[in-house]
């Protein structure tokens, strides 16, 4: 696993705010009715990136193109944006993919453009759970999408899974995780379904996940993945050794990153800011050469330090001995070397532990 020196690394996030269909648990900045602005949006991204490079953007260690649905955009225009970035040799470049959109040709274009990591939105392997999540993709497509990734030579593959939808049994979930293992991913992200305010899901309490059920499912996924050789390195993330997502580690190590596109977040040395929320406003800002930033905050030294601990506690880096009183934590954390690291039970009660950080 990469070490602390990642603090010096620099990342770029590119947001593609378009989707075929909106999942009813999703609160991200995405739109299903703005396809007509895609071309204009991609040109704005291109311009925005060029301006930042010209203004002295540092060399880029990691890139994450997410959304929304990046695969909804022509691969060539995505790769054209990517080509503007001053990448270091060996940079990690991830694209989030919808299995329904993935083709051999698309993956070949990605691979040629420098993409070396695909994150696939699988969510579940059982049809009724997918339906209950409001997802429409076809299960057979997952298999063929994975084959396309493999055929292109892209080496790293993450599968995104979600647990806790209404009607999902423990066996359904076990089946999903096992099917995921069959696809030999290098990385799995498994997220407990979260009710975000303002989403359709939020308005239907009978579909809200149960904490105890999600705890059981967390233990299931952790146990299965661990025995399949994927180690947990952040609360919701597991990887084969050496395949941890360096871009996400950069977030958790309070590294600097610049976000491009609407609603994208950025961070530089204790200042965090975020862009205007809609694609139209982003396009307008870029076209008129005005700031894309909507708002931001500057952390004081104390808050910055506490945030660093809160983030690090989520990962297998843990926090320094002395940042927590182990005695009061009753098996939620343990000492590993010089660090205090969450146990499986502690990862489930991460907030409770976080609140006790000095």
């Amino acid at each position, binding site marked *: 696993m990469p070490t602390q020196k990642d603090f010096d690394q620099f990342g770029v996030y590119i947001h593609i705010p378009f989707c075929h269909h909106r999942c009813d648990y999703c609160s991200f900045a995405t739109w299903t009715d703005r396809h007509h602005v895609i071309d204009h949006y991609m040109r704005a991204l291109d311009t925005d990136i060029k301006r930042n490079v010209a203004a002295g953007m540092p060399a880029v260690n990691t890139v994450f193109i997410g959304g929304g649905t990046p695969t909804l955009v022509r691969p060539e225009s995505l790769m054209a944006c990517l080509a503007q970035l001053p990448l270091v040799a060996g940079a990690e470049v991830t694209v989030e993919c919808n299995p329904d959109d993935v083709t051999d040709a698309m993956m070949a274009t990605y691979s040629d453009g420098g993409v070396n990591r695909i994150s696939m939105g699988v969510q579940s392997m059982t049809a009724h759970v997918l339906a209950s999540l409001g997802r429409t993709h076809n299960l057979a497509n997952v298999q063929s999408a994975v084959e396309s990734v493999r055929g292109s030579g892209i080496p790293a593959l993450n599968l995104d899974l979600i647990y806790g939808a209404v009607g999902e049994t423990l066996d359904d979930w076990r089946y999903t995780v096992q099917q995921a293992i069959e696809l030999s991913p290098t990385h799995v992200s498994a997220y407990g379904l979260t009710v975000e305010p303002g989403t359709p899901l939020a308005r239907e309490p009978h579909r809200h996940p149960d904490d105890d059920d999600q*705890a059981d499912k967390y233990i299931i996924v952790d146990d299965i993945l661990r025995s399949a050789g994927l180690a947990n390195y952040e609360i919701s993330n597991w990887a084969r050794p050496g395949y941890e997502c360096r871009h996400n580690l950069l977030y958790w190590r309070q590294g600097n990153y610049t976000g491009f596109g609407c609603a994208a977040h950025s961070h530089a040395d204790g200042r965090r800011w975020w862009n205007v929320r809609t694609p139209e406003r982003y396009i307008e800002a870029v076209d008129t050469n005005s700031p894309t930033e909507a708002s931001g905050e500057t952390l004081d030294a104390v808050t910055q330090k506490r945030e660093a601990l809160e983030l690090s506690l989520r990962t297998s880096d843990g926090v320094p001995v002395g940042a927590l009183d182990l005695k009061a934590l009753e098996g939620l954390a343990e000492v590993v070397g010089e660090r205090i690291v969450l146990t499986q039970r502690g990862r489930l009660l991460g*907030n409770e532990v976080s609140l006790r950080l000095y």
Partner: protein
Amino acid sequence: MELSKIRNFSIIAHIDHGKSTLSDRILELTGAVDAREMREQYLDSMDLERERGITIKAQNVRVDWKGHVMHLIDTPGHVDFGYEVSRSLAACEGVVLVVDAAQGIEAQTLANCYLALENNLEIVAVLNKIDLPAADPDRYAMEIETVLGIPAEEILRISAKTGDGVPELLDAIIARIPAPTGDPNAPLQALIFDSQYDQYRGVVSSVRVMQGRMKSGIRVQFMQARNIHESLEIGVRRPVPTPVAELGPGEVGYLIAGIKDVAQARSGETVTTALLPATEALSGYRDPKPMVFCGLYPIDGDDFENLRESLEKLRLNDASVTYEPESSGALGFGFRCGFLGLLHMEIVKERLEREFDLSLIATAPSVAYKILRTDGGVEIVDNPADLPLPQNIASIEEPYFKVNIITPKDFTGTLMDLCQSKRGEMLKLEYLSPERVELHYAIPLGEVVIDFFDQMKSRTQGYASLDYELDGYRPSDLVRVDLLLNGLPADAFSTIVHRDKAFDYGRRMCAKLKLLIPRQMFDVPIQAAIGSKVLARETVKAKRKDVLAKCYGGDITRKRKLLEKQKEGKKKMKAIGRVEVPGDVFISALKLDD
């Protein structure tokens, strides 16, 4: 000022019958407040009053109407504040009785009307909300005639909302309510009917001059508090405070006398001049008498001194709160506080938290019991934890209330069931009209303060109303039910209940606490017991998951703020042993439906 040109009146109304709206309209119509400055519930100055839609502190305002000066005295609107109402009425010659034309007269309104009649006040009755489709003014005019003997044809019909009929009401006030009397040359007798503390000016008292003249810059004597102060400023509220040189008989205004504590200028106090004092004080003064008691403890033990100072400051503004230090095994150091009623208790806790930035936990409320000891001694116990050992108790007596309920007759049965379940004894049932019944019961105060009011409201869809007064002590078979959290007795949560109800109380309390105590990192058993005998048990299962699934670039700020909020939330939790309990757990438990 010429006495014949003065009218002093108060508005008596049930909650929601339109008192504040009518006050707003009067202020507008008389030009006291122009439309630009108008806001709803103008006279309810505390945020809490607006939020809850009730008046807690009395206000007064001077308006001009057709060559007359009118003083509108706004009175508190809850049964907890009966004494304050009686003092406000003592400052008036008449009242405007406001009755909702769709609902009819309510018990507390009726009680205040009787109070007005006893004080020989003229009643101008109005039916409000005649613009409502459900209004039935003919029917309720008849009812008022039957109950109060006010001829139906004299009852005005208005809409405070639209302003319809309000000018005629003002004319009727001048025509029907008598002008005040009083000798301007007699020694000064001025009645204080409310005092509020202002951090810049000290105590500002509302006063009504009965005899003599009150002047600024003279030495005045407070006859009950036995103190002498200087009248630094006197004035009238229009509603903007406007200083005047003197107030004569019949006039209502305010007095600032450099007083730092409202307990020195209580409602009912008589102010006279130090030089030539009146021979006797005005009648009707009463020391405030707390009815309900609870412990208030700081969530953070280090805040004990802050709480003491805050209580001192709060008492500058609310002399009816009593407090003395106490300690509890479960909660540490805090104060035993006395309140006029449950609403008052809630308001005080909320004000301490809002205005003094404290986080508090309130214990289960209690009334004051009279303990007759085997050695012949008598003690008053308002904290169940202080109950002597059973072998030292000969008998326990509990306070009773005489409760009057007015209800549409269809709810008579369900209300009788309720009163019975609260160990009530029926004294009388009378028909006010073919449709409405007044029930008279004697009910133990301990039962009334718990959830009687809310239950009555829910059983009658809000149609019944209530009034009560203290009715002495009676012996009862009472026991103390203790609560154990995680196996440890939480002394502060003990309650005294009737033996027959102990089991039911214990079972319900455990069930409610199970809902109100958040899941902890371990199982928390909750038990109710009498002595070593466990009556009921519930378990709050250990929390297993609280973590947020995702924390990427765009989530970091939000996540950090969420944790900060949770940290703040934790500060509102009191640790009892290892168990974290919300500060309002008992107030919430009382409100929770079964």
